[in-house]
């Protein structure tokens, strides 16, 4: 499937750029940068992206699977997000739906 061949550049443009993710400002031990998806002023989804500079580097299947899982997307939705058919507004609807499913009022 296509998603397994996504590069750092694809992910950065199609995920961090399109969704306007907010970079974490906390000093980190891990080499990988962390971003937050902000909804209604709250940080709701935390995504770790690979620390691979140069743009065309391949990302391991395991790492891509975690990005997809963090974003709460199916394989098809993840491919659509990175390759453009899925807009930021479409993703917001998915995020609202999945967050509502996973979270119960406390």
């Amino acid at each position, binding site marked *: 499937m296509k998603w397994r061949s996504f590069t750092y550049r694809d992910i950065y443009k199609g995920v961090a750029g399109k969704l306007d993710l907010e970079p974490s400002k906390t000093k980190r031990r891990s080499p990988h940068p962390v971003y937050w998806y902000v909804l209604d002023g*709250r940080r709701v989804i935390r995504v*770790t992206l690979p620390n691979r500079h140069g743009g065309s580097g391949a990302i391991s299947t395991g790492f891509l699977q*975690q990005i997809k899982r963090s974003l709460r997307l199916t394989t098809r939705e993840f491919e659509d997000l990175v390759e453009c058919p899925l807009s930021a507004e479409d993703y917001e609807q998915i995020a609202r739906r999945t967050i509502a499913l996973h*979270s119960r009022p406390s």
Partner: protein
Amino acid sequence: MTTFLADGTPDPRTRHREAPHITGITWDVPGEVMRDEPIARSDLDDFAGRVEVLMERAVKWTTQIRDLGEEAYLLQEPIQIVVEEYRDQSVVARFPEVEAFGEGHSEPEALANLKLAILDLYDELAEATAPTLGREPRAWWRVLDRLISVA
């Protein structure tokens, strides 16, 4: 695969287990009656898709971590984690309840990176104020706050 008995005849226990071989649009089953029923392209595509899904599945197992690798951060109890090994040899160790993961080329490397990720998440959530976090990150903080004590 068909095996043969000492006299050279096919072993009846394995003769029928031979995997069918796809030739174009017909199924050719060696030693059996040729089936000339056409196979729809959509069926082949569906089959290929199912093989892809199986190929991307990881081998999974669970293990525990008892120490986070920094003296100042003490684990109150062992953490149950999931390790996944993918076909491209990448290994992911994750703590599903707080969505933390570490990745590497081996299980020890993935575990070491998971520990860094958990420490980073702990520090990040400790700095954050509750109103700025969604429900799930607040739940992660409750889990980590119970699990980790800082000396």
